């Protein structure tokens, strides 16, 4: 469902040329749970931007659901992001002082979903992300870090995307709430066959995925099935 073919990315600033990715190739099947791991400066963020259709590669091809998205215009990329990708960020990026419901509904206003359907979808996404119902009316700044990240996950789910991209989703959380968030991803992956790509610099976090791609200096150094996946019990909180 997702195919990356010999992708390179070069940044040019004045005379200086920096190569962030040098020939990266891999496939991801539907329902996979993949971790992309690497230290800072390894090129994992650049790869995430390309996978998330926020950026295009300098050369190579990227097929998302059999469609080549490596040479699309900004507007076409936005259209692709709208329907196929759900982002979860390290710093949550919720709208400040805004209710949970409005935060989760945000992607829907850009895709013209009718009002009646929105509420249904928003509530469903929030339940899947595991946020307690009495929190739905709260403002984003009244929530704990773990709750905020679950709102962000619900926001990523609400448009029913093919791919969920999580960029260091536990980076701003303590280990206990981090576990809850990872558990949420595992559950979504298992119960709903969601394709999840987790970007992290910590091996411990990466080990919660089925498969780990290790990236260093812009190239893949390790790509394999994770035999000792850390499974968390999927009790709904």
């Amino acid at each position, binding site marked *: 469902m997702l195919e990356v073919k010999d992708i390179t990315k070069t940044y040019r600033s004045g005379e200086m040329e920096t190569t962030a990715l040098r020939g990266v190739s891999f496939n991801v099947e539907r329902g996979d749970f993949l971790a992309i791991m690497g230290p800072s400066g390894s090129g994992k963020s650049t790869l995430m931007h390309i996978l998330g259709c926020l950026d295009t590669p300098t050369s190579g091809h990227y097929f998302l659901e059999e469609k080549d998205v490596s040479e699309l215009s900004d507007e076409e990329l*936005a259209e692709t992001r*709208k329907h196929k990708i759900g*982002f979860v960020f390290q710093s949550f*990026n919720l709208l400040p002082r805004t209710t949970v419901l409005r935060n989760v509904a945000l992607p829907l206003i850009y895709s*013209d979903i009718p009002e009646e359907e929105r509420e249904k979808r928003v509530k469903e996404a929030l339940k899947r992300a595991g946020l307690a119902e009495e929190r739905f009316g709260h403002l984003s700044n009244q929530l704990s870090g773990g709750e905020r990240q679950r709102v962000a996950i619900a926001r990523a789910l609400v448009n029913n995307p093919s791919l969920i991209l999580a960029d260091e989703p536990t980076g701003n959380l303590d280990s206990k709430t981090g576990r809850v968030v990872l558990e949420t991803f595992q559950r979504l992956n298992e119960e709903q066959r969601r394709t999840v790509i987790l970007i992290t610099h910590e091996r411990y976090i990466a080990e919660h995925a089925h498969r780990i791609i290790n990236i260093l200096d812009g190239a893949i150094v390790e790509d394999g099935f994770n035999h000792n996946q850390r499974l968390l019990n999927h009790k709904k909180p």
Partner: protein
Amino acid sequence: MKTSDLLQETFFALTMNKARSGLTILGIVIGIGSVIAMISIGQGAQVSIQQSIQSIGSNLLVVYPGAQMSGTGRQVSSGFGTAQTLTLADADKIAQGVPAVELIAPETSHRYQITAKGTNTNTSVVGTTPSYAQIKNFEMESGLFLSEQDVRGSSKVAVLGPTTRDDLFGEGVNPIGQKIRINKIDFTVIGVTQSKGTSGFMSQDDMIFIPISTAQLFLTGDDYLSSINIQISNEKLMASAQEQTTAILLASHNISDPEMADFQILNQADILATLTSVTNTFTVFLGAVGGISLLVGGIGIMNMMLTTVTERTREIGLRKAIGAKKEDISRQFLTESVMLTVIGGVIGIILGMAIASVISRFTQVTTSVSLFSIMLAFGVSAAVGIGFGYYPARRAAALNPIEALRYE
């Protein structure tokens, strides 16, 4: 993105920082309010001038002594209407020679000190004929206007304007039969004119009318006139009547070159046009003063929007990441600035109208708020929103989502 969503997003964004939005709106309120109030003063002046000209009388030609203001500048022009070139004989010739003349009223007016039983005032004394009242639309409050007999007999009778009556005898007192002294000569009051309102630049209520023969005999001592008022029977005959009058006067004054004429003729349309152009300039000037504050308000909008775009960089990045297009982002920020100016515009229009009514209630200045000025103010405020919101909105739309998401 649906319009209802756009408006809802805008509403939330503006209420997020109420103090800042409020102050920015205030800037527009003051701008639009001052434009409305200022223009209302200008237009009020225009309306009152038109009314006062209509109250003077219609189809009116006025002949003044003295040289034409325009021309080659060979002549030295003394004060308007003070030259001594027109006489009663001229008035008679016009009355006989121009068929379109309906009424004619020669007039000689000068200011004198007037006394009556210990009170005194200084006002203009108009020596004229009975037709003056008809030509200038004067109605009587009490008593009678001058009669033919008064003129023929050079009677020492006077008709007072209501303001003059108030000054000399006190408000509401009936002065008929009382004596007043003009230039040490006793006159008997025979009537009081009705008030025409203090409209325009000259009060028509502060005047004394006496027979022209009396004025020439006892006050001025000469035969000269300060103007001849002519009422023409039909508006369409104004131009030809003006030409005929010019020809008659040139002939009687033995002047062959019309440029050397020692008199000038104003018709009501000319006066109206001149005054209208003056008040238009006045209105534009006042509007410009208001416009400057509107401009400052607009800069306030731009300032706020730029700050907002910077503050909300991460939010813009997020919106772009979840699929908002450039157009969505720029439309959103543009709607915010237009919403600010439209809210400010509506409040400003109300404020401006309130100021205008306060001005006309508590001062002598008349004001008039026209639909045109409201539409103009509203259009301008929307345009200010678009104009000053355009650059910040474009800046927001042009942000790179990756960099925007990383922005600290």
